[in-house]
């Protein structure tokens, strides 16, 4: 059984009421579903005997700028048992927030902080949702499509040039 069949079978058996969109592009499997199920499905993918996606490699996002659901949060997870990775995709509106998966994968803590810093997506029940890279007092989110490449003048303070 290949990975797509296995994941499809497992997920539809366990969650028959949830709509899954499982796509395969260049041997990269992506699972899309509604954002309210993120924690339960993450927990299942991690702890199921046959799947064991125990490693959360990355949490990031895509800014679609003009779509109604502006952001897609993307999770890359890896299974040591199957030696393969899948991608979870969840659409989020600009005003919405999404449940944190840091209770499932501890690594997601910093990945979600980075996603919050760069895109301004807030993660509910995150233990410590502070900025990762930019200074605390910075007001913008640099990887959003409406943020200019060279930044906003004066938004990042420089030391004073004396003598």
């Amino acid at each position: 059984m290949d990975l797509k069949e296995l994941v499809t079978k497992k997920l539809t058996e366990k969650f028959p009421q949830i709509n899954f969109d499982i796509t395969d592009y260049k041997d990269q499997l992506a699972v899309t579903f509604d954002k309210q199920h993120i924690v339960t499905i993450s927990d299942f993918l991690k702890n199921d005997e046959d799947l064991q996606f125990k490693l959360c490699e990355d949490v990031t996002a895509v800014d679609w700028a003009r779509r109604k659901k502006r952001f897609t949060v993307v999770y890359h997870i890896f299974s040591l048992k199957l030696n393969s990775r899948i991608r979870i995709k969840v659409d989020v509106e600009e005003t919405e927030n999404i449940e944190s998966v840091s209770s499932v994968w501890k690594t997601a803590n910093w990945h979600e902080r980075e996603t919050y810093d760069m895109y301004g997506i807030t993660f509910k029940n995150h233990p410590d949702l502070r900025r990762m890279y930019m200074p605390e007092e910075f007001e913008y989110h640099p990887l959003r499509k409406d943020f200019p490449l060279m930044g906003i003048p004066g938004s990042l303070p420089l030391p004073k040039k004396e003598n």
Partner: protein
Amino acid sequence: MGLEAKLTKDGFFTSTVDALVAWARKSAVWPMPMGISCCAIEMMASGDPKYDIARFGSEVMRFTPRQSDCMIVAGTVTYKMSHVVRKIYDQMPDPKWVIAMGACTSSGGMYRSYSVVQGIDQFLPVDIYLAGCPPRPDNLLNALMQIQEKIGRSKARDYQDIPLPELPVIQNN
């Protein structure tokens, strides 16, 4: 050969205080290696036997700003890092010099981006801008020689009455 050859005849020589002090100063410029990114590798290479920065009296890389004369800012300075660079510069005793090593430090280089300071001269007085990405060690040595030339031309009066900058006091509770 050197000084002693001249001194054997009379046992003394005349000079000005300015010239003597400038000569002493320029012959031992102790660098503060502010190695932030890849330029630091070339800065380290300039200390190895092949290039040998010791020939110019600058082999004593001081990792404390209190004992150094010339800060070599080697690498990309981000807005977040700029405060650290400035703080270390403020801790160096006068007189002091700054080498902006490499394209990033001089102008932001290839990082034309919101997070990188487009040239450290926005917050530091820079004496030498060094081209290259990264500059070769001999290029750094050339910059050092330029600094030495600049120090050699200096007079004692250049360094008088520079008020010390007020540094913020960090209080630990």
